[in-house]
Every structure is written in structure tokens, then in C-alpha cells.
């Protein structure tokens, strides 16, 4: 009467039901194992070929390499090299007074750009330390320490002790943790058609910030350090380079402010 098969017959047969289930689970496990093996194999070989493993995953905040407030009527973009003697003179004799006086008074806003020249072997590494310090809000202290002790660390490239002296120990520990992976060649200024990160790789987390500064320098045809670009109320008005004494620089700033 009823031509449809009676499934309840199988259901009544406990042995047959379990067999189907086992087969099904077995097949699923086999398929899962096969898929997992197929996916895992290329990844393993990829990792094996990539040596050393990158640790750039360390998360850092953007380095703050500025002095003052953005609303200041004059903005100075500075391109400097920590190993350049003229940059040191400029910092010691002009920039310090500028920061203490005009920046503190809200008249000038300074944006620092790293421009480590290839003629200076440790300038890139110094820029790394400064940028790492900038991620914990200690850029000013690091910059001061680098210039104040330029004669010492340029002898052997041992920069860490001077950075350590310039900031609280807890901050230095954070900076040192960032610098732990910065063992490759640091980015340096070469020519505009060469990627600044070409030699440094991607292990040091602050290198992209230095490379970005170098690219900005290329854009503005910066060909010496220190180079300063002056903006008045947002408009670029002048670009100059080399050492300028504080009285002469102040006279220039005053004449702009009197406009």
C-alpha cells in the first residue's frame, strides 16, 4: 500500500545507525585534517624562509617631535642631523633660546624632522633614539642629551647611556624596549629615488617615522643641515640653511611678528 521505504526499520537497527555515524565523523575528521595540513604547509615554509622573524608588531604611539602649540603665528620646520657639528651649534646657541623664549611665549611652533646624512655613521641611530624617546614624550630631553654629548657618542656610537641620563628610568625602559629591535642599519639620506628603508628593513618600529621625515626633506630640496623652513600664518615665506646666531634669528622672527 505504502511504496515509501520505512526508515524506522533502520532506526530500529542500532548497529547500522552507529556505523553510519562513525563513518560520517571519520570522514569529517579526515577532511578537517587534510584541509588543516594543506593550509598549514605553505605558512610553515613561508616563515622558514623569512629570517629573522619580524618583531615590528610592537605597538608604539606616534613620536611627538614638536615644541609649542600649533596656533603660533610662526611655524618652523627644522631638518637636522644629530651628528652634524653645525646642527649642534645651532641647537646650543640658537634653538635653546628660541624654545625657552619664543616657543614658551606661544610665538613659534617648531616641527622637528630627522635628516640623518649618510656621511655621519651614527646619525641614523641617534635619530632612532630620539624618535623612540619622542614616543614616550621625552623628545626634548633626548635631543638635548644628543647634542650636549655629541663629542662623546660620535666616538663609538654608544648612545644609550646619554639617553638614559636624560629621562626618568621608567621612561628609559620603554625607550630601550622600542630600541631592542633596532639593530639593522638605520635609515639615512641618500638620493630621492632610493627608499630610505631599503637598508634598514622593517624590524625597528621607529624607522618609518625617520623615513617619512627624509621623504619630506627630499620634497623641500633639503640639501644641508640644519635647514629651516619658515611659515607665517600657515604660508611658507622662507627657507634657509646652516648656522644662524640667536640675535640675528630673533631679529628675523621679530620682523615677521611685527607684520
Amino acid at each position, binding site marked *: 500500500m505504502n511504496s515509501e521505504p520505512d526508515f524506522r526499520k533502520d532506526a530500529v537497527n542500532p548497529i547500522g545507525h552507529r556505523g553510519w555515524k562513525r563513518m560520517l565523523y571519520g570522514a569529517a575528521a579526515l577532511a578537517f585534517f587534510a584541509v588543516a595540513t594543506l593550509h598549514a604547509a605553505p605558512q610553515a615554509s613561508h616563515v622558514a624562509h623569512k629570517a629573522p622573524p619580524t618583531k615590528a608588531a610592537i605597538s608604539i604611539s606616534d613620536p611627538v617631535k614638536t615644541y609649542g602649540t600649533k596656533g603660533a603665528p610662526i611655524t618652523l620646520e627644522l631638518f637636522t642631523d644629530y651628528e652634524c657639528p653645525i646642527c649642534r651649534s645651532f641647537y646650543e646657541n640658537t634653538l635653546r633660546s628660541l624654545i625657552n623664549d619664543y616657543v614658551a611665549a606661544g610665538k613659534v611652533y617648531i616641527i622637528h624632522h630627522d635628516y640623518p646624512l649618510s656621511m655621519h655613521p651614527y646619525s641614523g641611530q641617534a635619530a632612532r633614539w630620539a624618535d623612540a624617546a619622542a614616543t614616550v614624550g621625552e623628545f626634548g630631553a633626548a635631543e638635548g642629551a644628543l647634542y650636549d654629548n655629541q663629542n662623546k657618542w660620535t666616538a663609538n656610537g654608544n648612545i644609550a647611556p646619554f639617553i638614559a641620563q636624560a629621562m626618568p628610568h621608567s621612561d628609559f625602559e620603554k625607550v630601550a624596549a622600542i630600541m631592542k629591535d633596532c639593530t639593522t642599519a638605520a635609515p639615512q639620506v641618500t638620493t630621492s629615488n632610493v627608499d630610505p628603508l631599503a637598508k634598514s628593513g622593517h624590524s625597528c618600529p621607529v624607522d618609518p617615522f625617520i623615513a617619512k621625515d627624509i621623504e619630506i626633506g627630499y620634497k623641500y630640496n633639503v640639501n644641508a643641515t640644519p635647514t629651516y623652513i619658515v611659515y607665517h600664518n600657515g604660508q611658507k615665506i622662507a627657507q634657509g640653511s646652516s648656522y*644662524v646666531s640667536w640675535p*640675528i634669528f630673533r631679529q628675523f622672527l621679530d620682523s615677521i611678528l611685527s607684520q
Partner: protein
Amino acid sequence: MEQTSRQRTGRILLIVGRIVLAGIFLAAAIGKLKPLAGMPWTVASVKTSLAMFAMGVDSFQILPAWAVSPLAHFLPFFEIVLAIWLLSGVGLRISSLLSTLAICVFIYAMFSAWHRGLAINCGCFGQGGAPIGLWDLTRDAVLFLPLSLAILIGSILVSRKKHAESTATVGAQHTVA
């Protein structure tokens, strides 16, 4: 007749040389006084340009700090006066001598900066430009200096010729008298 033609050519060349040299000094002065980008021609903006030029002078690191600003404020106006003086032709020997001395000083300053490895702009025609190099030195030493010297020598020759002519005229007048 031939002598007169040569003299005429010499005088024309002297005038052309004076105009060119005066033009160079005028261009240099205007370049230094010209307001910075986005600023109008006002006394205040010219002061700013002169202050910018003072920074350029300071970057040569030759002069003591107290002398930088006075020189930067004097030089562009001196160049204007020299240009007008050269064009007028009055006291040409003195104006061309001053021009020659000024160019010699500029060459010395540029050579000194270049020799010390200072990558600075010469600031000769205002701000900007490439760092001082062989081109700047060649331009001043091979073009401007010989031009100024030629005017100086030409003016001396013209002056001597005039003197000789006037002496001869006076002599002739005495003979006639």
C-alpha cells in the same frame, strides 16, 4: 680715422659694460629687498627681507655678530647707489673701482664658505638657490670680475685720453695766444 673708429667702439663697449654691470648690481639689490613670498611691498616687509638677508650673511660665519646686521642693511642700498653711479658715468674710475672691490669681496666670501664645506646659499640675488658651488665662483670670477675690471681699465684709458686732449688743446691755445 681708424683710431677714431676704434675709440668709438671702445666707448660703446664701455657704455654697454656699465649698463650690464649696473643691471647686475640692481638685480642683486632688488633680490635682497624683495618681500618674502606672500608679503606686499611695504617698509615692514622690506625690513623682514633684510632680516632674512642678515641670516644669510651670518651663515657665512665670517663677520662678528655685531657687524652682520649693519652690513646686511647697508649692502643692498650700496648696490643700488653703485648701479646708479655706474649708469651716470660720473667719476667712473671710482665707481668701477668700488665695483671691482665689491666683487672681489663677494668672491672671497663665497670661496671661504665653499672651502670650509658650508652648504649655504650665496644670497647674491636674494634667498633660495643651490648651495655655493663652482658655478657661483666661476660666474663671479670669470664674468663679473673681468667685466668690472674692463670698465675700470676703460675708464682710466678714456680719462687719460681726455686729459691728453685737454692738455693738447690748452697747449694749442697758449701757442695761438
